[in-house]
């Protein structure tokens, strides 16, 4: 998706930055306000709808037994996808996902995978034969910039609020045990923080207008211990070493605030 922003607005956004202001009157390091609803899809194992400013995402979790990957027979499966629905933005067309949407899905997937949010080794029914798969689908219903963080928070909240059904093996086939659910083995809560770099200024959680003006963006995902576990840089601009250091500090400092919000949706024992 490419939206062309008019030059007057672009100049305004860049001009405001010089006065340490943003177009929606936020601080540079201030993410937009976020609302989360969980269990919005009845038939899913877990789901969450998140609104980050005007960006809106629904994530659904489906848990089902599956065959393991040949080289990872002792681990469960985790797959995360994303789709921007045509109703989200006038410039979105139906059809196979573009590069940007594939990147989006992979960055969200990577954030959850590399922080080891899910202890996949506990999702094995029988080694090399049968494991439990956790599938997270993100549907973007409104596009106002920073889909990375919105999808990441939505997926995380959906997983945290999911129950894990129980399967037992009968004749090497997994059979669902009714009314027996446990908690998904969660080790940490990843928090993705996306920063835009506009004219050497770093802004957190860029909205759609800022997104179109920025030279580069950087997404950093931290775990509960405040370690950076995954990173993605995009855009044609470059990031200097000092900017990278500053971005890491920002991501680490914002992490706990958002983690606290997401943790509310975690199912306790």
């Amino acid at each position: 998706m490419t939206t062309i922003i008019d030059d007057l607005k672009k100049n305004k956004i860049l001009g405001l930055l010089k006065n340490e202001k943003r177009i929606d009157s936020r601080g540079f390091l201030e993410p937009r306000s976020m609302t989360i609803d969980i269990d919005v899809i009845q038939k899913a194992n877990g789901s969450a709808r998140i609104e980050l400013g005007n960006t809106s995402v629904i994530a659904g979790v489906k848990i089902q037994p599956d065959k393991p990957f040949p080289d990872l027979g002792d681990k469960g499966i985790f797959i995360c996808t994303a789709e921007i629905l045509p109703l989200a933005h006038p410039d979105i067309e139906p059809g196979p996902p573009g590069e940007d949407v594939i990147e989006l899905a992979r960055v969200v997937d990577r954030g959850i995978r590399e922080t080891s949010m899910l202890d996949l080794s506990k999702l094995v029914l029988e080694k090399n034969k049968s494991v439990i798969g956790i599938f997270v689908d993100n549907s973007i219903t409104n596009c106002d910039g920073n889909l990375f963080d919105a999808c990441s928070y939505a997926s995380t909240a959906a997983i945290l609020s999911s129950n894990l059904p129980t399967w037992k093996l009968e004749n090497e086939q997994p059979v669902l045990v009714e009314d027996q659910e446990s908690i998904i083995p969660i080790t940490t809560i990843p928090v993705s923080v996306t920063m835009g770099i506009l004219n050497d200024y770093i802004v957190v959680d860029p909205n759609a207008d800022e997104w179109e003006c920025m030279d580069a963006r950087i997404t950093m995902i931290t775990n509960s211990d405040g370690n950076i576990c995954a990173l993605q840089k995009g855009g044609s601009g470059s990031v200097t070493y000092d900017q990278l250091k500053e971005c890491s500090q920002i991501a680490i400092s914002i992490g706990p605030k958002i983690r606290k919000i997401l943790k509310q949706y975690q199912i306790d024992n």
Partner: protein
Amino acid sequence: MENDKRVYVTPGDVITTGPYRADQNVICQNNKIISTVVGISEIYDNNVKVIPLSGIYMPKVNDLIIGKVISHISLSWELDINSCYSGFLPAHDVFGRDFSAHSDELSSRLNIGDLVTAKIANFDKNRDPLITIADRDLGKINSGELVEISPSKVPRLIGKRGTMIQTIESATHASIIIGQNGWLIVSCKNQKLLSKTIDAIKMIETQSHVADLTDKVKSKLESDVGE
């Protein structure tokens, strides 16, 4: 202008009967003038029209519009005109008749992202509307802020004989270029007046159905400016 009584109508409503001329959003059947949209009917100078309450912008020849350059090919620019059609601005309209695709670079005059005030030169629903900027006060916009409202609310923003827009302009000393496609360019002396102007415009958009809106806008602007 005696019988300019405004009535809310829905599609199929008979607005009037008699020898009237069907203008916008109405059809004439057996001497009856029938509305085709939800809106406010208006009868003036033997014409009957309905101002729709919502809807997209349908290009009309000679409409002043604001367009955004979204791409260019060798002989023309493509403009986003906030419609289901995209505007087509031929290069010779800007460069003159001696335009040559070899020597003239389109991006030297208009770049992607530029805003222009333009007019619809020709349109027949089967093709994209032909746009022109070869006239006085038309062309690239260098300053101001783009404000978007629903195209159907543009007549309300202008008001009867321009009263509404004059009210805003005189209260805030703003200069407002109104595109019939619902895009406006607002220029003001300072940011405070600019946000007041935009607030007033948005108020008209959301409360366009309210009676005595001009007075309400006037009192709001006066109270705001007084602060």
